[in-house]
């Protein structure tokens, strides 16, 4: 079972290292992690995806809460939330293949963000399933490089994490 944990932290040096070393010291693997500022420039949000059963997750959440620079920890998996990931894909695009690739990009509501004589670089946003799907679709054309952001997530509706 994968869990998506949203963590509000003090925007200070060393906080990422504290979180990362907590995971590594306990032998927990991080599947993805993304960090960015919130509305309050002193507070950052980390979205962490971790595999693990309930008992492991309960420990992770408790250990995170023990860190002084961590303001709030929520396991979003128990709630209704939206999550998105962005990926940049550089794919081989010979002139004969271009229209087919454009077609696929269109279906996935992606964008071509860079063009060169032999390549397209494509930007796609979506949940994990959608991103995995377009990667599968583009693989036959020859994917040269991929950069994924890792997941960002937010509670749906009126729920607010920092309340």
């Amino acid at each position, binding site marked *: 079972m994968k869990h998506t944990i949203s963590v509000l932290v*003090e925007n200070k*040096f*060393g906080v990422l290292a504290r979180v990362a*070393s907590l995971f590594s010291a306990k032998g927990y693997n991080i599947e993805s992690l993304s960090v960015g500022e919130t509305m309050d420039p002193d507070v950052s949000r980390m979205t962490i995806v971790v595999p693990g059963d309930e008992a492991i997750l309960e*420990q992770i959440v*408790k250990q995170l809460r023990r860190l*002084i620079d*961590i303001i709030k920890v929520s396991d979003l998996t128990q709630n209704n939330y939206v999550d998105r990931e962005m990926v940049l894909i550089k794919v081989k695009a010979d002139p004969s293949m271009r229209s087919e690739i454009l077609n696929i990009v269109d279906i996935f509501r992606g964008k071509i963000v860079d063009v060169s004589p032999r390549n397209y670089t494509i930007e796609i946003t979506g949940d994990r399933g959608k991103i995995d799907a377009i990667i599968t679709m583009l693989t036959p054309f020859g994917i040269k490089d991929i950069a994924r952001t890792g997941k960002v997530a937010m509670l749906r509706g009126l729920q607010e994490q920092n309340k």
Partner: protein
Amino acid sequence: MFRMFQGMKMTGARILLECLQREGVEMAFGYPGAVTLPLHDEIEDLGIRFVLTRHEQGAIHAATGYARATGKVGVCIVTSGPGGTNLVTGIADAFMDSVPVVAFTGQVPRLMIGNDAFQEADIVGITRSITKHNYLVQDVEDFSTTVRSAFHIAKTGRPGPVLVDMPKDTLMAETEFMYPEKVTLRGYNPNYYGNAMQIRRAAEAIGRAKRPVVYSGGGVISSNASEELRSLVHQTSMPITSTLMGLGAFPGDDPLFLGMLGMHGTQSANLAVTGCDLLIAIGARFDDRVTGALDSFAPNAEILHIDIDPSSISKNIRVDTPIVGDIKLVLTELNAIVKGGDYADWHQQIAEWKREKALHYEKSDHTIKPQHVVETIAELTRGEAVITTEVGQHQMWAAQYGIYKHPRSFISSGGLGVMGFGFPAAIGAQAGCPEKLVIDIAGDGSFQMVVQELATAVCAALPVKVVILNNGVLGMIRQWQDLFYGQRFRHSVLRHQTGTYYPDFVKLAEAYGAVGIRIKSPGKLKSQLQDAFDTPGPVLIDVIVSEEENVYPMVPAGAGISEMLVE
């Protein structure tokens, strides 16, 4: 009186010292280096005693011993690089045993950080996972809030060590001194008051139980909740056992006390925990040395757990009724409503265990038994001394055969198990409690890890007594080799290859200007110990004890705690 300095221009070093004074710091332990010289230049002018140890490890253990004996925050000041790295063991010990200590380390100037400068080490990175929190002072402006927060974090909630790393240029730079009235840390708000409904459920469980046992730990001492624990137990007549860290919170000579539980616990304590229908864990953390195999630990019991640290709850053992809060406050609430149930059959069973399965060892007229030394110390001091220990067999005998009546009277490295902890901890305890008799019960192995601190005890006039249970071997290692490694005693013999006890501890003590005494005969043990305790100044007592003695009961690694070896 302090207000007049507000707004005055001062160096970072002076600001730090002013802050220490406002935190009520009376003394600091440490070792100087080039980076921290500005502090040494001024610290005693502010009325803060500085105890110079002979190694930084001694300084951090002394600060820990001071904190554990007095309940105040221990302070340690050392230099950059090796000064900081030499603290690592002591910081890890304070972290495992939840001791409020603030360690100040010098750092190279900010512009040189990361350049492999002389005596540079990333001590904030190194200690990240063994401190409750740590800081690198990045600007002289940050000194006062950093120091204030460091003390606040160290002593509140579940206490722990905090490290403050201070680049030399921030110590030398000047700014206006502004002492913050309040600390605001939005990510740090310990929960002090237990949930009232949970407390009611706990009281009901205690009333309903037939075979309850209280399992109390070091958290009771940290929370200064010894009185409240005694009230709970006496009000309900529940039997009580204790962890190593909790000894002294409840009087060791009380009829309701079962002794310590766990790997070297008493049979009555381990059988009671295994047979109980309600286990009330108070400020304890279900450490593996306590629980043994998890699936046979208190298998039929409902489990209550009172602790200030939510991450201790259900970590190793699933808890039925957790109460997160300060033990003193929670027990005060609980005591107001709790009533004991009918435990008559249970008390009868326990009395039988206590009678038939008491601790015992074979007495001897010609060799001194180590257990006998501990019993004699207990008899002579009547539970009024502060006892520290190193780690190993002597530590377990001190826990089993000593009688501790007061909180903060038994100080031992429980979680990390640091050999060489007890002597510097005794020095710190003595510095904090000058009126008390402070005794380090040591082994010949452990003591040699910190032997240089004899100089600290002598020069700082701290009259600690060190009783070495000298068996010429690493006793606990020898015991495991005896029981589990076919009696192949490899690398555990400390005597000289000629067979003589080595080194000569009496001469060693004399070389440092302390008094050295050797005790060899069981008949003279009591009188010689008494003489040693009556001798002013630091005294090292080398007691030659039998080598073959093992610590029993013993729960082999991986077994349940009711499966004890008893001989």
